[in-house]
């Protein structure tokens, strides 16, 4: 059976060029970056070169890049670190209602610590209005954190406008760019952000490496205390092989992103059009144009998402769903509810995310089998 991976938003395979760059750092160049001897210093210079590479990719200064272990860590670091460093100024933080769980949960925890969280609504496409951000910012606001592109529905936010407002109001602005990083151009200066999170394993790098961009002069407390690595902001022995891989992935993205984006957009639109024309009762979630080049999210009448995912899996196709049935908490996706879907509609959702190795023939195969799957499941449900 052929295998078709259409869950690139969950994680990506590591590009072979990245693996090659990483290999020497497992057993030849294995030193600890904090050691004074040659073994350590050799690795230290690789770390600093990687930092430069990643900084360069987003128009930042190298000393504004902190390597972390995961995007979840970066996002926890931002919320908690900014909250505790700036609590004398105020205790209000503004987020959207479609953030990733690591932002949502961190915010909720901060609430229990006496901070106040404002959660902004989105429109039916999943967009936040800059006007709402402006209205939400008050004297006590210390941070605005908005996801750049939704991991579920792919909608891209007007981040530049939101950043401009935050700057005018003198409030720190963070964006979780995990899904957009490496897929669409990002420059920290033109989008007006003070903080930005991104992760390696969503853009053909290895798992275990991520960054937090922290603009010079930003007041933030570390999350991890210890040996003082990463300019004292993230103690831990640095995972150099992963960081080197991440930097290599950025180098590749810098060269290939534009072409890849055009190609993926074509495939994405082919799949979207195909589904809409072949499957009655199918609805696109998220913005038709302002969406990631690789994201497709639908809901279908009269079917449940987990059963679609299992049927696809039996045919070798990997996909995901925001249905309550597939979540550990048995709750539908908060993002789908936030764009106004009813519980039953979110129940029938399916996400397909394309990537570097997606072929047109794979898209066409999905277009061949998906209508049959939906039809079969509708027969079983009687469309009740």
């Amino acid at each position: 059976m052929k295998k078709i991976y259409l869950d690139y938003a969950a994680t990506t395979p590591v590009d072979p060029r990245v693996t090659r760059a990483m290999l020497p750092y497992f057993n030849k160049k294995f030193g600890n970056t904090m050691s004074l001897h040659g073994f350590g210093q050799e690795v230290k210079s690789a770390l600093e070169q990687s930092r430069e590479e990643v900084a360069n990719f987003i128009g930042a200064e190298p000393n504004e890049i902190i390597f972390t272990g995961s995007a979840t860590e970066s996002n926890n670091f931002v919320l908690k670190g900014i909250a505790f460093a700036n609590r004398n100024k105020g205790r209000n933080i503004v987020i959207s209602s479609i953030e990733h769980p690591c932002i949502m949960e961190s915010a909720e925890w901060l609430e229990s610590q006496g901070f106040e969280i404002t959660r902004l609504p989105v429109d039916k496409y999943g967009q936040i209005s800059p006007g709402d951000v402006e209205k939400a910012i008050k004297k006590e606001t210390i941070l605005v954190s908005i996801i750049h592109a939704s991991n579920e529905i792919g909608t891209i936010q007007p981040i530049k406008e939101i950043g401009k407002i935050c700057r005018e109001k003198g409030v720190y602005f963070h964006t979780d760019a995990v899904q957009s990083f490496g897929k669409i151009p990002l420059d920290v200066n033109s989008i007006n952000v003070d903080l930005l999170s991104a992760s390696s394993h969503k853009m053909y790098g290895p798992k275990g490496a991520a960054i937090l961009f922290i603009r010079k002069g930003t007041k933030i407390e570390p999350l991890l205390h210890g040996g003082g690595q990463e300019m004292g902001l993230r103690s831990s022995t640095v995972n150099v092989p992963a960081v080197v891989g991440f930097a290599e992935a950025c180098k590749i993205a810098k060269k290939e992103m534009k072409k890849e984006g055009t190609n993926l957009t074509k495939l994405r639109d082919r799949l979207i059009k195909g589904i809409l024309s072949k499957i009655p009762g199918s609805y696109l979630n998220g913005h038709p144009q302002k969406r990631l080049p690789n994201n497709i999210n639908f809901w279908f009448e009269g079917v449940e998402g987990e059963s679609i995912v299992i049927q696809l899996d039996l045919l070798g196709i990997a996909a995901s769903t925001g249905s309550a049935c597939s979540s550990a908490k048995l709750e539908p996706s908060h993002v789908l509810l936030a764009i106004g879907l009813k519980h039953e509609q979110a129940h029938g959702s399916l996400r397909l995310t394309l990537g570097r190795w997606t072929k047109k023939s794979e898209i066409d195969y999905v277009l061949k089998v998906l209508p049959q799957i939906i039809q079969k499941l509708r027969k079983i449900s009687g469309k009740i």
Partner: protein
Amino acid sequence: MKPYYSREVIKRFTNPKNFGEIKNADTVGKVGNPRCGDIMKLYIKIGRKGGKEIIEDIKFHTLGCAAAIATSDMACDLVKGKTLREALKIDYKKIIKALGDLPPIKIHCSVLAREGLKAAVENYYAKKKSQKK
């Protein structure tokens, strides 16, 4: 590697035998899963055997996950030909056992099948009672 769903669950899910509607059903039970929002409808045709009322035929419609569909199909097989009283004794543990296994998070789906059965039988008794009056 242990698969997420047992072979029997996948078999029942991909090829359920008992889905559909019984047009002149004697009773119908419709239940919803309050946890994840799934819906199940059971159609039952009642027959007689040795003076007792039995489930002559049973079919389902289920809008739900693979486990919900597989348990619906299995529940139908388990109660077909049984008296109403026997049918009510089928609990979710029996259904799971017949399916091999279910992931822990999916246990509640099998409860749905049992609830549907109960609702259908109760509806039938209620209907009979009101007809007698």
